[in-house]
């Protein structure tokens, strides 16, 4: 009995330690966003302070951060949709024909450092007159979203009974009907998970937008770095930017967290 209580206490202590490590930086960032810029790095940190919105005024008033956030939204949604449009049918084919090499090839593209692509892309897209457009960012971010879609969806497609597809074929369904009316509804939880993960990875990706975006298409993550500089560092505005950037992925994750956990575990054990 005592042993069981001790174990339960140990569990709680472990959970508390993990919570502190995970939550403390987020709480610190959130609180700092509402502190005057000279108090952000005060030591010891002040838990009780008069909150101010001056950092958000700096963010949205003096800087065009709302526009940057909209750019991020366009790029993340666009590249997620592109990743799904290309990745979902491709994954079905990979799964159906049991070919692993196309999936591995996309993984190699994802594992390669982003700098490898930058200069060729810059030359290529400059020649096409696309540098600085949303389209170039959506296309390049597909390098991030496509492997995510394929590798997340693969166990879901593997789990679709072949008989289900064969029955639809016997019933006379066309290939596109089989995919959209039979297979996709079955793998919908996977599509949701793949969409969220693709969105988050694209939303947070920095390098391609740094070089290939233009003044009008700069994303929020790139713009947030502008608050650091010799003689002009503004921690308060940076913390406010971090809060704004963290919000969409956080909200999305909270909305579908049950499905996300289930989805991530899908295919882990095959029976």
């Amino acid at each position, binding site marked *: 009995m005592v042993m069981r209580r001790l174990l339960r206490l140990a569990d709680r202590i472990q959970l508390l330690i993990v919570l502190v490590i995970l939550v403390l930086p987020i709480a610190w960032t959130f609180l700092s966003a509402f502190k005057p*810029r*000279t108090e952000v*790095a*005060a*030591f010891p940190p002040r838990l009780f302070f008069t909150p101010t919105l001056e950092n958000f005024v700096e963010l949205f008033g003096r800087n065009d951060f709302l526009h940057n956030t909209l750019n991020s939204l366009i790029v993340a949604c666009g590249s997620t949709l592109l990743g799904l449009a290309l990745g979902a049918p491709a994954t079905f084919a990979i799964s159906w024909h049991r070919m692993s090499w196309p999936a591995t090839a996309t993984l190699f593209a994802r594992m390669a450092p982003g700098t490898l692509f*930058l*200069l060729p892309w*810059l*030359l290529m897209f*400059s020649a096409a007159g696309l*540098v*600085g457009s949303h389209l170039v960012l959506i296309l390049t971010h597909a390098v991030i979203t496509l492997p995510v879609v394929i590798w997340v969806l693969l166990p879901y497609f593997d789990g679709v009974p072949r008989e289900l597809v064969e029955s639809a074929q016997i019933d006379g369904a066309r290939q596109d009907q089989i995919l959209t009316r039979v297979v996709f509804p079955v793998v919908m939880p996977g599509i949701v998970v793949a969409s969220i993960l693709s969105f988050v990875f694209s939303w947070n990706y920095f390098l391609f937008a*740094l*070089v290939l975006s*233009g*003044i009008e298409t*700069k994303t929020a993550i*790139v713009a947030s*770095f*502008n*608050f*650091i*500089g*010799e*003689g*002009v*560092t503004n*921690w308060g505005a940076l913390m406010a930017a971090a809060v704004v950037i963290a919000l969409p992925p956080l909200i999305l994750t909270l909305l579908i967290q049950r499905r996300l956990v289930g989805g991530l575990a899908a295919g882990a054990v095959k029976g």
Partner: protein
Amino acid sequence: MKRRSFNGSALAAAALAATGRRAFAQGQAFNWRAHDGQTVNLMFNNHPWSQAMRELAGDFTALTGIRARMEIFNEEQFRARLTTLMQGRSSDLDAYMTLTSREGAIFHRAGWYADLAPMLADRALTAPDYNYEDFGASIREASTFGRQVVAVPINQEGPLFYWRKDVFERLGIAEPRTLEDLLTAAETIKAREPSQGVWAARGIRSVVPYALAGFVFNMGGSFALPDGKPGLAQPNTVRGLELYAKLLRDYGPPGALNHTFTQVTELLGQGRIAMTHESSNEFANITRFPNRAQDLGVKVLPPGRESGISKPVAIGWTIAISAHSRRQQAAWLFLQWATSRDVQGKLVRAGVAPPRASVFEGPEFNAWASEMPIRRAWANALIELGRTGTGVYQTPTDRIPEARDLIGGVIQQIVQGRATPLDAARAADTELAKLQ
């Protein structure tokens, strides 16, 4: 209501244009509107100058009719984007900030700078009152390679010694007059007031030389031998390296080797350290913290006790036109306007030290400096930087960033106790020789 607001804006724009034209009255014959309707794309490092430029850009458009589109990035990202665009020979970029003392030789060899000399010499392209000679000779030389003028100066800066006068007074420590006094003061503060942090300075290897060089020079050392070969192992240079490392190791904050100006400025601003050697650019940022404008002292790093030498680092950012730009003449108008006497006078209030002698000695700058004793001290320190400073603080090489990285690595090794100052310096000399 909308109409009234529009009229108000129009009136304001007209007034602004009139003011701009008046300011350039001397150059009335000069056609500022030769490229009316064009747009120039500019890329700047995040710096007090570029932030101030953003506020003033409307004046430029009112004067010339040219729209200035500015991109401002943190220095690391700025360099990453700039070099990629230039390697890609992008014609999208028209003008950019550049630290010619650092990357000038490499950029010049790569052909990334447009030559400004023909534009400066052309009366149709350069306003008669521009007065390029108003920039000091050494400042102009730093941006001249052979006969090519690659950039025009926008500021001057260098590391300065900041100290908490109130802490020194409280503990009965005299203002440091020599470099060695810094160590004595550090020992006293640590012994008498253990709760007060003592010292902080740059510890990240690539940025260490900027703050370190004054220690080396003032000790009578140098980064090169008389024949130009690497000379970190010279006795006086080693003494400078040792003192910088000792202050960082024995009196610096935890994690000092991961610090750069961002951490150092916060520590000083928060009152958590009593001394530092940090950029003059940080002055406006530091004095924004409560009480710092009243209790800080600022001056160039004191001279070495035995050597009597005071040789600070003095550099300046410049602005260049891209060799690949298709709007070079419109960009040249921006450069002229941004580095004009009138605009530099306005930038003083943003904490940008002007590189033009006439502005530095002018009534606006003096009036601003006279408002607070610390501003006067900062201004005096900058005058001294301009008089005695050097922009060369590594062994002779074109591969300056790599050389500075190696020199910074010496400090890291000493602080971590991985090598004695002499051994670390000798090892670095071998590596530095490979860059020559």
